[in-house]
């Protein structure tokens, strides 16, 4: 492994942090390794926006290797939104470029008195004044910094106005709209007065067995290109399965209150492909290219909408206009706000307005009736700038609901808004959301795909009915473990790569001789390590809950009438995980099995 560049913004100094060799075997890289590195720093007293708060950007052993959809990296720290473990995963090109500088990660500590950006040209780090960048959006900083560097090939990762304004769901963005959107790490970066990190590498990507790896990745990419799921993602983007998910009742509408909405079919990858799609965009080395390039009629090529954007600014608000959702997605990207949390909080406001819990007196005169796109656009601007009613929304859905005395109506877990996969259409997602180490997240396990059949028996995964209950709990846990491996490598979840192929790639890249069991054990170790961090940060079994609206049946649609047997499922999940039902902590035996005993809390 290459070192991590450790930057102290308070002192303006740099040092190389050497990663302990045995940690690669135990944690593989990226998210799991970040959890191990930051374990001691993440305390309950730590203010996520303080000088002491760490921000760790870390690649995985496959990042930038031209493996099958392996261009990604992660950002980690303590979340200002949840005050728990924060991790966010992002694609684009930046991660691969970072590794070419000779560093596998950048660890930001301290806090600058004035705006700065970090330039890493080759392996030479330099902190530069960023007063002129402050106030620029995440697209503008790309152009400004590249111009200053005189190199178009410089890759820029940075925050927008939302991060500067300390909005707790601000993300960190690279390469025009690639987002480490969740858990508010852009807010942490903004609090440090760090606007951007520009990298330009001139080295190679280290591989233990380059010739072996090359043959493996060529074969893996060829197979991936032929995979039917890749065809769906390539042709239709991340919303490729939208119609089917809607048919199953898994697509939320009107803030999770109904299962049917006329015109929903316009919010699908198929519809986008048939109306506004003009091209595709890929992350580093990816043969799928799920990124959409669209033309909204102004002859300008823009980033097209992803599934979460189509849903969040579409059906979630009672809107069925894909062009509008595209525009809102770009707005959020430019401001540097997480699309899911921003649209989720807006959805709550619309829901409360429709229930007469809030009125135009609260909203600054805006009538937040379902389908009012104009109001949503106004409020996105107001949120980013913390103006008027937007300032209330800018605190996120849990705080917003608390202000109006309806905390139970916020569709979130531990302060993070739910992704747009309704667990009433895919019950396994109930456990995924409730137990995810970073709040209601679909990237710690995209179990909704397992619910429609993506279960690899080589991992010991089985196929359960989407409305099965406690019997699928152990399967969900195993799926989380596998996706934890993916988030450590870092492997895109859209890439349907056989586990044996992943194993061969890891061994060739790292010079290890792991088995598939070792890989799964590493995933389980990472999952439980993040659990220990969260227990240290004050989490308990009481946090493993679903918001009340999701425990009610939907009145219509593909999941009409279904009630999630949540308590039974959670109980079975704790058993499968060997977690104590009272405390929510892993048992001593489990920690011993995973080699985590020395990290255990008192």
């Amino acid at each position, binding site marked *: 492994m290459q070192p991590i560049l450790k930057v102290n913004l308070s002192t303006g100094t740099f040092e190389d942090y050497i990663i302990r060799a045995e940690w690669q075997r135990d944690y593989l890289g990226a998210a799991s390794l970040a959890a191990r590195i930051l374990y001691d720093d993440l305390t309950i007293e730590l203010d996520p926006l303080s000088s002491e708060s760490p921000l760790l950007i870390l690649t995985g052993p496959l990042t930038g290797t031209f493996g099958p959809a392996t261009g990604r990296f992660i950002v980690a720290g303590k979340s200002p939104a949840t005050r728990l473990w924060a991790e966010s995963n992002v694609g684009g090109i930046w991660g691969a470029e970072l590794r070419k500088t000779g560093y596998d990660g950048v660890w930001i500590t301290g806090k600058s008195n004035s705006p700065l950006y970090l330039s890493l040209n080759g392996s030479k780090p330099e902190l530069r004044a960023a007063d002129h960048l402050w106030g620029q959006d995440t697209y503008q900083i790309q152009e400004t910094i590249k111009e200053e560097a005189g190199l178009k090939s410089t890759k820029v990762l940075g925050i927008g106005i939302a991060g500067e304004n300390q909005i707790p769901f601000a993300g960190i963005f690279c390469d025009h709209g690639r987002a480490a959107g969740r858990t508010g790490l852009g807010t942490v970066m903004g609090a440090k007065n760090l606007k951007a990190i520009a990298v330009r590498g001139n080295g190679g990507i280290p591989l233990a067995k380059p010739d072996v790896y090359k043959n493996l990745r060529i074969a893996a990419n060829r197979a991936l290109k032929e995979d039917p799921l890749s065809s769906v993602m390539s042709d239709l983007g991340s919303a490729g399965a939208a119609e*089917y998910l809607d048919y199953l009742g898994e697509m939320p509408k009107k803030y999770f209150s109904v299962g049917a909405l006329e015109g929903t079919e316009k919010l699908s990858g198929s519809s986008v492909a048939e109306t506004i799609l003009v091209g595709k965009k890929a992350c580093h080395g990816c043969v799928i290219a799920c990124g959409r390039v669209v033309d909204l009629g102004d002859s300008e090529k823009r980033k097209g909408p992803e599934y979460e954007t189509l849903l969040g600014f579409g059906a979630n608000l009672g809107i069925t206009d894909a062009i509008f959702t595209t525009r809102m997605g770009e707005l959020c990207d430019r401001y540097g706000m997480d699309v899911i949390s921003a649209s989720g909080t807006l959805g709550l406001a619309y829901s409360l307005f429709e229930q007469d819990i809030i009125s135009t007196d609260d909203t600054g005169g805006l009538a937040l009736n379902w389908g009012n796109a104009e109001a949503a656009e106004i409020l996105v601007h107001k949120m980013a700038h913390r103006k008027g009613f937007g300032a209330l929304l800018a605190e996120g859905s849990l705080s917003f609901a608390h202000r109006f005395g309806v905390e139970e109506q916020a569709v979130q877990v531990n302060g993070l808004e739910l992704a747009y996969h309704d667990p009433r259409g895919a019950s396994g997602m109930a456990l995924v959301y409730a137990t995810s180490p970073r709040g209601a997240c679909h990237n710690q396990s995209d179990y909704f795909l397992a619910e429609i059949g993506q279960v690899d028996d080589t991992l010991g995964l089985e196929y359960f009915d989407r409305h099965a209950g406690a019997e699928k709990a152990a399967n969900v846990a195993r799926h989380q473990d596998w996706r934890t491996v993916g988030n450590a490598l870092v492997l895109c979840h859209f890439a349907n790569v056989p586990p044996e192929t992943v194993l061969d790639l890891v061994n060739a890249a790292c010079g290890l001789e792991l088995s598939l069991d070792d890989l799964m054990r590493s995933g389980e170790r990472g999952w439980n390590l993040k659990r220990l961090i969260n227990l240290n940060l004050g989490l308990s079994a009481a946090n493993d809950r679903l918001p009340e609206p999701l425990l009610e049946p939907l009145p219509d649609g593909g999941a009409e009438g279904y009630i999630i047997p949540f308590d039974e499922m959670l109980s079975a999940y704790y058993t499968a995980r060997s977690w104590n039902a009272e405390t929510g902590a892993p048992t001593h035996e489990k920690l011993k099995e995973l080699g985590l005993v020395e990290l255990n809390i008192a």
Partner: protein
Amino acid sequence: MSAVFPSLEWLEELKEKLNSDEKYARIAKNWEGDMLCQLDADDTLKEPIFLYIDLWHGKCREVAIWDEIGDKKPAFVMKASYGNFLSVLRGDLDPMQAMLTRKLGVKGNMAVMMRNVPTVLEFVRCAGEVTDEAL
């Protein structure tokens, strides 16, 4: 006695079933496109076989067995081993699961396919219901 899968007789029975099944007709009313099922050889099936099925607006217009794909371009090509096709027909393997676990390859317009997953599931149900005997 039921026809044996895969055979022309089985295809004819499937055609009759599709053209008489009300639920299939209703759900598949917007489907337009022919398909070819390529059954690859395995331990049971010694040579590959190509089953051609032309589906249009909830009805089956034509069935045939082809010797090869050649230059023909059906709207969709489904490719799997004989054993995996049979598992799908017998309900032991969900068709979406087969696709997502690389047991069933699909070529064609994915926008049409994903928009019409319920049609595909209904087609598979009908095909399963005429599959009593196999090799």
